[in-house]
Structure formats: C-alpha cells, structure tokens
C-alpha cells in the first residue's frame, strides 16, 4: 500500500506553516505521520499537498511555566512517557503515553498529531480531558486557546480549523492533594484503547473535593462519567467508595457507544467500570 500522489513542502517555523497553508489549497500537516500516513495509505484521504512540520524547533520540548506544563505539539509519546516533568506533574499522561502502540510507534507519534487526529480509540484525548488541558493554536487571525472539553467535537473532528496549526498542549501541574492515573483495555493487535479510563482526584482533609473521570475508546469523544464523579465527591477514598462509584460508570455514557468485531458496544459498556475502578484505585493509592 502506498499513498496517492501529493506535493510535499517542508516548513521551517510556525509562521512558515501559516504562509504555506495560505498558499496551498487542500493541504494537510504532517508531523510524525503515525495517524496520517496510515490514512493516506488506505486512501481514506488524498490531500493535494503535505506540509511537513516535523522539524520545527519551536514546536518541540516540554517546560514548566507558571504552574503548568507546556508541551510542544511535536513532543513524541516516548518523550511524554520519559519526561521527568510530566511523570511528576501529570502522571496519568506519562502512564497513558507509555501504553500507546509499541516503542517504535511511540518514537514517531506526537501529542499534537494525536489530538488533532482525534481518533476515539486513542489514549491521550481522555487523559488530557481529565487533566483539564488546554490546546494552543495559531491561524491567520492570531493565536487562541481551547480547553480539551470543547476541543473534541466528534469522531475525528476537533475545534482546530484547516488553516490553523496546533502549537502546544498546556496541562496544569499536579496540585497539592491531587493524583491522576490511566487504565486501559488495549486492542491486542493495534494497542488502541478499546476502553480507556483517565482520572484525576483531589483530596483535602481525607475527603475527595474534586473528581474528574473521563472515558475514551468506547465513546466518539472523551466523555466525563459524571455519575462516578458525583459518587466520589465529598467522600473518603476508601475501597467501598471506589467500588460504589465505579459501579455507576455505565450511567450517563448514553447509547452512542462504539463497538467492533473485537469488542461489542454492549461488552464495552458492561466492563468499562473495571477500568474506571483500576484507575481510581491507582490514583487513590498515590494519595495514600
């Protein structure tokens, strides 16, 4: 399999991307290519031009600025998984990145490409939603920031416009009394998430003051399990509470659930609570 013909241009800077996007109709941005190249090979997409953004220095690197992690869009999954800053400040993100695909895939795939592609079976959208991330993008009208909860609009659809470049992902640093975790059921061949559960818990004086519980893999976009969050809030995070809260996972997930030959929608709905419970237990364990 190989892609249909396209023109190829390489951008040297974010400003260069803007210029090239304005010059080329029907162009797609290429970073690590681990979402885009498979689609091109299957000929599900045949853009006229690929703009390679993979070498732009300003889109690389992880830093801590003003209480938040700033993660360049070109940061690879391998870099997310091994970054000391991310492991310390957003453990669920490092944990999820380490479970994407396999080592060779993680060496090429990028956080920006991953979220811009917005595959429902991807790991990072649910994690970044649970962690309250913000996506930074630039376009002809300047820069803007969109919170994760409004960035993902539908299956493979996001707030990112065709003439915009995703430049960075901002993730709040873990606050005092906070912990996060990710648990998934991977597809045995592709390692995509059949079910992914991302949680961030905040406790004060022995009780949960805030819970963010987000599911991916079985829903078209990352979906907050509000019933689980409510069942945790105000309670001590003991086994009993975690058990009772995770039992509410299926409530509120709705009927628009994904299924395939490997795992039906009914099956995913029935076992999702297991992964929620595991993620909750891992996060609660980190707070103990």
């Amino acid at each position, binding site marked *: *399999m190989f892609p249909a013909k396209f023109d190829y241009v390489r951008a040297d800077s974010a400003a260069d991307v803007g210029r090239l996007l304005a010059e080329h109709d029907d162009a797609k941005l290429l970073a690590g290519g681990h979402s885009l190249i498979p689609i091109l*090979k299957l000929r599900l997409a045949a853009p006229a031009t690929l703009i390679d953004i993979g070498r732009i220095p300003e889109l690389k690197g992880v830093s801590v600025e003003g209480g938040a992690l700033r993660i360049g869009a070109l940061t690879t999954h391998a870099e997310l998984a091994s970054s000391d800053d991310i492991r310390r400040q957003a453990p669920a993100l490092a944990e999820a990145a380490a479970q994407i695909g396999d080592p*060779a895939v993680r060496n090429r795939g990028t956080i920006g490409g991953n979220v811009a592609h917005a595959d429902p079976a991807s790991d990072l959208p649910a994690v970044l939603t649970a962690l309250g991330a913000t996506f930074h993008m630039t376009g002809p009208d300047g820069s803007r920031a969109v919170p994760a909860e409004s960035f993902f609009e539908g299956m493979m659809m996001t707030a990112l416009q065709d003439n915009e470049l995703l430049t960075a992902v901002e993730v709040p640093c873990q606050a005092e009394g906070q912990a996060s975790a990710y648990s998934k059921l991977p597809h045995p061949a592709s390692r995509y998430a059949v079910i992914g559960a991302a949680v961030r818990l905040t406790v004060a004086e022995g009780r949960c003051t805030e819970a963010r519980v987000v599911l991916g893999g079985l829903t078209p976009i990352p979906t907050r399990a509000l019933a689980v969050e409510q069942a945790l809030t105000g309670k001590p995070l003991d086994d009993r509470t975690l058990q009772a809260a995770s039992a509410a996972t299926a409530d509120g997930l709705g009927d628009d659930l994904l299924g395939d030959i490997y795992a039906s929608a009914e099956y995913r709905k029935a076992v999702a609570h297991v992964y929620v419970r595991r993620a909750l237990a891992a996060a609660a364990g980190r707070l103990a």
Partner: protein
Amino acid sequence: MKVQLTINGRRFDREVEPRQLLVHFLRDLGGLTGTKVGCDTSQCGACTVLLDGVAVKSCTCLTVQADGCQVTTVEGLSRDGKLHPLQEAFWNKHGLQCGYCTPGMILASHELLRTNPDPSEPEIRHALEGNMCRCTGYQNIVRSVKEAAKTMAGGSQ
C-alpha cells in the same frame, strides 16, 4: 524530490516521489532487502529500522521525512565481518524459524538494549510488543535477547 540518506554508513542521493515509503526506498533503491514489508499497517514490526539511532517502522515513514538522516538496517549491524551480538544470539538460541520477522525483532531488541541494557523477561516481552512472529518463536526470541544483553554487558561490542 531530491533526498540524501546515509544508510549503514553509505550515502544515497536519489530523486524520489514524496509518497514513497522509507521501506521501499531501502528495498528497491538501496537494494537492502533485509528489511521486510509485513502487515504494512505499523503493527507487525517486520519493517523496523533505526532512524538516527532510534527504532521506527519504515512502512509508516516517508522517505522525504528521513531526508538527511542516518538509517541502520539489519545489514548494517555487523562490523568487520563479525555479526552483532544480537545476530549471534538469535543464531545461537534459535531465535527464528522462517526468519521473516527477524530483522525487525533484532532492531527492536537493539532499541530495548539501548534504553535498558539489562532487561528482565517481562521487559523484553513488553518491548517486543510491536513485533510479531507467526512461527510462535517468542520463547527463543526472549532467550536470544537475554543472551545478547549478557554478551554486550561483557564489553565485546
């Protein structure tokens, strides 16, 4: 488009179509058929090569993305006619049957030992998750990687 790649230390200047996949450059223009096309969907790992020293799946990389880079294929691992310890170990421990997955297995193992020189058995199995052997030879593949780690720790390479 004109590209310049250094493959196993040898420089290749070629004109390629932007849509060409790196694995096809290696096999068809480089004549290096050690690298295999397996599933062609970045799952089986038969096409694994090192790009600037890091393992990648060459069926999911365009040649133009590798422009200016160093590529190492299985043919580039031996030194002065002497097999790399991983190649020796796969031979000694019978880490292959049909051999189709072997170049990818060896380069994925190379990546593992670069980042973790003394891996446990579970770590080896985890690191080779993206490489499939359809002869069910995983037991001996794991033994091969263990032996190579031991040899390499001994400082022979």
